[in-house]
């Protein structure tokens, strides 16, 4: 599949004249579609190995699962970007950035959705003049502490409601801490939002649909990269390996933190996966639940796309470390 797609992608950037590529890329699309139809049976044959087949199933299922959240997140972010006036945010959030960070973090509670939707929304918030630190706190908090995710956590750990409480608390602390850290150390030039003249369109409706189209193509494309990576990890790591790593308390925390990044499970589902990792300590599973919605392969890919690579290489590792430290501390005290 992937090799088939890289061909048109490479050609799309080559033609120089602005108007010629457009016809060119549409023709390429038609050619690729016809070719794929022709080799369809052979393609199915290549994918008949059980490992590859499982890869394809997991890849498609991550995409299918994410599409509703992506689309609704994109629509909400387009509404923010086009219809909500800048003055609204100035009134809604405390004017002082230090106070705006926790306010934005707590605001994440009301947005039920998983992380795929919150990346474009955070991009829109920054674009509309919300201080980046607050938008980042929202980005980190929204997928982890909304009611759906916390309910799923309660259900996944029957008889241990403190797991959901610890998760909400640790996630909120990490989100706010990262926001404040950004206020102290962050540099505005690290965030490089794509230039978007379409958002200033005089026709609101036209700007709205242009924003939807852009975000679906953009965030969606990076989601594909992340889904492919997650499917690969899913197929490559056999469950038996994890068994051996669960014995040491510190190693198990690091292993589950890394696994959360690699598996890229939706925040609404990760509690069930954590519950199933019974050989690991509760604290290490809490770290899994705190890291997962904040740093994972598909998020890293989407953040690089929406905020720029310079932002991503600093933000993702810092969040990863903060999530491990806070998750471990909260887990040690509460669990």
């Amino acid at each position, binding site marked *: 599949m*992937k090799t088939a797609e890289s061909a048109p992608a490479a050609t799309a950037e080559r033609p120089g004249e602005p108007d010629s590529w457009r016809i060119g890329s549409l023709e390429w699309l038609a050619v690729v579609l016809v070719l794929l139809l022709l080799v369809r049976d052979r393609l199915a044959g290549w994918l008949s190995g059980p490992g590859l087949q499982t890869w394809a199933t997991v890849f498609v299922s991550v995409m299918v699962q994410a599409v509703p959240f992506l689309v609704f997140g994109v629509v909400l972010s387009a509404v923010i970007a086009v219809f909500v006036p800048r003055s609204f945010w100035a009134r809604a959030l405390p004017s002082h950035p230090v106070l705006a960070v926790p306010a934005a973090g707590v605001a994440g509670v009301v947005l039920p959705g998983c992380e795929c939707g919150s990346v474009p929304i955070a991009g829109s918030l920054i674009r509309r003049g919300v201080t980046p630190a607050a938008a980042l706190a929202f980005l980190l908090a929204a997928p982890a502490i909304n009611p759906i995710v916390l309910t799923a956590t309660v259900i996944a750990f029957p008889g241990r409601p403190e797991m959901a409480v610890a998760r909400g608390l640790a996630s909120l602390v990490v989100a706010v801490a990262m926001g404040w850290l950004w206020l102290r150390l962050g540099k505005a030039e690290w965030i490089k939002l794509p230039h978007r003249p379409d958002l200033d369109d005089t026709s609101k409706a036209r700007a709205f649909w242009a924003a939807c189209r852009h975000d*679906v193509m953009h965030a969606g494309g990076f989601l594909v990269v992340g889904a492919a990576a997650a499917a690969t990890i899913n197929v490559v790591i056999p469950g038996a390996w994890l068994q051996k790593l669960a014995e040491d308390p510190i190693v198990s925390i690091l292993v589950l933190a890394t696994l959360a990044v690699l598996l890229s499970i939706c925040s609404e589902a990760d509690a069930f996966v954590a519950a199933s990792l019974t050989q690991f300590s509760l604290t290490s599973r809490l770290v899994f639940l705190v890291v997962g919605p904040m740093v994972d392969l598909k998020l890293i890919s989407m953040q690089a796309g929406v905020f720029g690579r310079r932002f991503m290489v600093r933000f993702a590792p810092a969040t990863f470390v903060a999530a491990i430290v806070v998750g471990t501390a909260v887990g040690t005290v509460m669990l």
Partner: protein
Amino acid sequence: MQAVVMLLLGGAVIKSTLTDTFLRYVKEGLRPFLLGAGLLLVTAAIMTIWYDLRAARGDRAPHDHTPHDHNPHDDTPHDDAPHDDGHGHGRHELRVGWLLLAPVMALLLLSPPALGSFAAGQSGSIGPAEASDYPPLPAGDPVQVGLLDYAGRAVFDGGKSLAGRTVKLTGFITPGPDGAPMLARMTLACCAADGRPIKIGLTGAPIDAPPDAWVDIVGVYSSEVGTDPVNQAQLAYVDVKSWQEIEEPTQPYE
């Protein structure tokens, strides 16, 4: 152009929802959301095409709504040049958007099958959960029982609520650690990425169905209990009286 990709993505999502193919990948509860998202994608594609056509016909210059990177005032140098980290936006966006064709084609042309014995062999079985009480099985001879329900009753209830009953279990065949066939069914918490198997050992009548074949097994409680070498979970056994191959159910997960 981007509109075509969105149209295909929306169409693929709607098609897999209407044909129940989506049940191979996610939970049934996602159906309305998938339909809604698919319709929104199609609408966005149609609106994009409509504005593109209007822009192509009339006022091109000021509000050109064709995609970014051939919009002259989009590539203003002051935005890109100072810190170009290889993340140019216009082309980047376009290039990465092409990747959406991968899941679209996979959905429309291949429709990958539901998770089967490969996935079941790779992860450890869900250990049956201990429930406070096991209500009597519903009427029926044989009575259809879920694999997880059966495992719980067999392992923790000592088969008390299964005594004297003939049960029917539906799942697919997966090779056990010793090569003997086991019955398995995957469960999803959210999507196939978190799919986990429930495995049940088979004794009694021999089964020679190939791996991944779906079977109905009619049998009775067996006191044998094994462990899954992958995660040391307890495995229930069933004493097979008869079995037959069946078509894969519409809802392949439990």
